[in-house]
């Protein structure tokens, strides 16, 4: 079963995204910020990561940059899931190593579509 780490400081978003991803056949785990996510990735690298941008302690952008430097950190497919919709910021996210990008609000169709585009479903 494929694994997906959901990184978001909102419990509600983690819960909603988790339910959608379980329906898509993923085993999910959660992190509340970028640092928490990095710690979890060091222990067990997931197949996919759904990550918010604005979070306390470490934001999603810094997390992705550091993730890609970790041993095996090039493997997970990273999908941003954020309210940030400026084109310049989207370009920065892709340059940092994101594979796809979801703009909130999202629904199950959007997550399924984006995960399909990223080759995950």
């Amino acid at each position, binding site marked *: 079963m494929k694994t997906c780490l959901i990184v978001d400081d909102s419990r509600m978003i983690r819960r909603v995204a988790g339910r959608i991803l379980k329906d898509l056949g993923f085993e999910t785990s959660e992190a509340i910020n970028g640092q928490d996510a990095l710690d979890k990735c060091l222990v067990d690298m997931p197949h996919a990561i759904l990550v918010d941008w604005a979070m306390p302690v470490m934001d999603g952008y810094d997390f992705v940059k550091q993730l890609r430097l970790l041993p095996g950190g090039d493997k997970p497919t990273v999908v941003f899931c954020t309210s940030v*919709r*400026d*084109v310049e910021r*989207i*370009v920065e996210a*892709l340059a940092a190593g994101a594979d*796809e*990008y*979801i*703009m909130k*609000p*999202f*629904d199950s*169709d*959007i997550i399924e*579509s*984006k995960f399909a*585009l990223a080759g995950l479903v």
Partner: protein
Amino acid sequence: MSAEFEHSASSLAPTYYDALRRLTLELAGVNLGANHAFLIETRLARLARREGFKSLDAMVNELFQTGGSRLAVQVVSALMERDTHFFKDKSSFKRLREVVLPDLHRKRGGGRVRLLSFGCASGQEAYGMAMTVHDMRKQLDGLKIDIVGVDYPSQALDRARAGRYTHFDVQRGLPIKSLIEHFDPVDSDWVIKDHIRNRVEFRDIHLLSKLDSLDQFHAVMFCGSLPHYSAPARVRVLRGLAGLVKEHGYLILGDGEHLNQMNFGFDRVGRETGIYTKREIIIEPEIDPSLKVSNGRTTFEKTKKKRSSLN
């Protein structure tokens, strides 16, 4: 008619559902199915509000009492709106990218090519074709490609012409790199950029009518609609499409769609289903009755029309 729309009166009398289904079948050849009451009400309520009716009932009453053809077309178009998104029929776009466009480039070189999105709804398929062409521009060097999208006059076609899509529209089927390359954010929506928009022209047309005014195309995409047509309408629409595709040109159907027993002058491409080429038309010359040979039989040779159909 009042601008104040009565939401509470947006539920239709049950007898109207059957009448609307019959109207859609007669005008457009499309079976709406039996369990679409909610869909019918939602789509028609939006149209009734836009057309300035006081309620949904008021619009449907006027439709069936006065029999106005403009309103009938608007109603049927609204009922037939499909839930579509960018690159919905993945295998169809794969055929366009891997088979059709390279072949047309090989045959046409620096010429002009016309592509058609038949039943284009809100334009995602036609713009998807334009994005595909744009992404392949180096490979298709020298080929000039025009894309036309046709459908019934409708709010969906208005949206196609505007090239403006919601946050939800652009996140279904469209890779993020394509979004930022081909769209600009405007307010809460995304608007298609000119380098894509300028390749595409939209026309409203009755899809079951005579299609001569469209001229012919080198490839036609007709995806996702065929199963919804009644059997007689399917024959009519495919016969119409056969006239729209140039000899040796392509017909691309949707994922899992294919021509059944009748081929309408198309041949399958290899073993693939869902992609067909238009057969060359062989013109038999008229027989001159004075041309008699000694055995008393009239002879003639079939003359093949020059293979210039793609020129």
